């Protein structure tokens, strides 16, 4: 046979299992995704461009990407503190906090959505104290950002934890014995070492936030031009039977999240090459 596909493994079932894998993958994922790209391609270019750059759409991009960026940044900062305390310190309740960090993965988004809204509306649990101070959270970009911090936190903590655990204590010892202060050791030695994990966690939280829907729709209030995220705009277009417009927006969002994921891969490749180069 000229085309030798599999290497000599004595285990049985190669053709059957690979065939099933590819068929199921195609039916559930690949063909429906292709349908999306085909649908958006049915629009002439000018109409496509118009659909994805309309002022209401542009406002939704600014909100979605802006709030996601801020939320991911806050997660990177506070997530670092959480991961650091979980890895470095021993305190009562540590195991509990460690387990509860995954709550946003386990809690359905609609539940966190209504709970956060109940907390932050004008007469809500915290809203009643914040409103008199002039801080409006529910139905503002601030509320959206809080919901996005909620769903993004585990991404940062879970990517950082293994990196912090792997930290080689000898580096710190060397830095200290050379006379570096604790703070210098921290920001010149520790932070650069875990930077790849931190940026990856940031990017994962950002990517997740950009596509988030369930935890945001309740707290956002969904006012066009002001608190309308792009995911919701896609649904609005669908409800108006503007299928091509909805697909055009979806394609833009898909390309955005693919770009973020590609960036993560580039970051990791870049750092792993640098580390190998140094060794």
């Amino acid at each position, binding site marked *: 046979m000229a085309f030798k596909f599999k290497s000599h493994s004595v285990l049985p079932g190669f053709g059957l299992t690979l065939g099933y894998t590819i068929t199921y993958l195609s039916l559930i994922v690949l063909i429906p995704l292709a349908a999306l790209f085909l649908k958006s391609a049915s629009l002439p270019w000018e109409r496509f461009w118009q659909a994805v750059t309309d002022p209401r759409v542009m406002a939704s991009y600014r909100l979605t990407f802006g709030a996601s960026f801020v939320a991911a940044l806050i997660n990177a900062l506070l997530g670092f503190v959480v991961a650091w305390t979980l890895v470095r310190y021993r305190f009562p309740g540590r195991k509990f906090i460690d387990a509860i960090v995954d709550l946003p993965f386990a809690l359905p988004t609609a539940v966190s959505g209504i709970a956060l809204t109940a907390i932050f509306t004008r007469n809500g649990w915290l809203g009643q104290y914040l409103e008199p101070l002039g801080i409006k959270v529910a139905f503002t970009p601030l509320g959206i950002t809080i919901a996005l911090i909620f769903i993004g936190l585990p991404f940062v903590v879970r990517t950082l934890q293994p990196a912090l655990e792997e930290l080689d204590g000898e580096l710190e010892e060397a830095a200290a014995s050379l006379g570096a202060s604790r703070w210098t050791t921290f920001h010149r030695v520790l932070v650069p070492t875990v930077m790849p994990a931190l940026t990856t966690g940031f990017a994962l939280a950002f990517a997740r936030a950009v596509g988030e*829907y369930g935890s945001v729709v309740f707290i956002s209030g969904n006012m066009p031009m002001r608190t309308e995220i792009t995911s919701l705009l896609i649904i609005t277009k669908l409800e108006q039977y503007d299928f091509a417009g909805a697909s055009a927006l979806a394609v833009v969002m898909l390309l955005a999240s693919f770009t973020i994921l590609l960036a993560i891969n580039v970051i990791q490749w870049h750092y792993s090459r640098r580390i190998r180069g140094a060794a």
Partner: protein
Amino acid sequence: MSTATNATLGGKARHQIRDPRWVQVLLIAVSMSFVGVLLLFPLMVVFIEAFRDGWSGYIASFEDPAAWQAIKLTLIAAGISVPLNLVFGLISAWAITKFDFPGKSLLISLIDLPFAISPVISGLIYVLMFGLQGWLGPWLKEHDIQIIFAVPGIVLATIFVTFPFVARELIPLMQEQGNEEEQAALSLGANGWQTFRRVTLPNIKWALLYGVILCNARAMGEFGAVAVVSGSIRGRTNTLPLHVEILYNEYNAVAAFTMASLLALLGLVTLAAKTYLEWRVKQQLRQTLVGPFET
């Protein structure tokens, strides 16, 4: 995920410099209050709001037949999608980890793809396939088959969003374990199915269960994707999360939080099972790597 116990402090951490006490106290306070306010507080609010009218108010929310319809549909969607993705996870992990073939890493990335796609888009792609204006819409209408705004659409969207869960737990573990044990079984005369059942399956059971539990939690809790395909027909195409939304928008807060409390319980059970299984998976991996006789 973290199993760092006091014992591990002897290893790499031996050389780590201890932070001053006030720094420790400050950072622990910051992370505890952050996790407390952001994660624990919303969770508590769900249960407090659900019991706002007491136990009788909580029970009363279950008298609505639409609530039971929603619970039933949620169980149906998870009951179909979880087994399908479980079978897919096993089969794809077998193909990927037991054989070498070109394009393997591309295949792994494609299996992970649904995680990179936002929930709303996950629903949208099925509307574009099977909706009235979709590619197969006219044919389906002719044959009187309804997928979108009906149960099949909800099931499909659920399968899509939970697609990678089992596979992505199994692939790294099975890669790590290699296939010497399977080869030994085969050379001793076992057939393929026996080898899989007696050798592979016991080696991966905890990771498999872990994947299934995460898959199930997402299947029962998915909101965005099913919202797009369901059409939210009350008492007919509502899953539990969609029913929560309807009740909430009708200002029926107690009923909404009662239904939400069921989902929150599911989340808590998932979290507990996840923590336990992570420990088991790590133990199993250590055991298969070290060998059963050296422990």
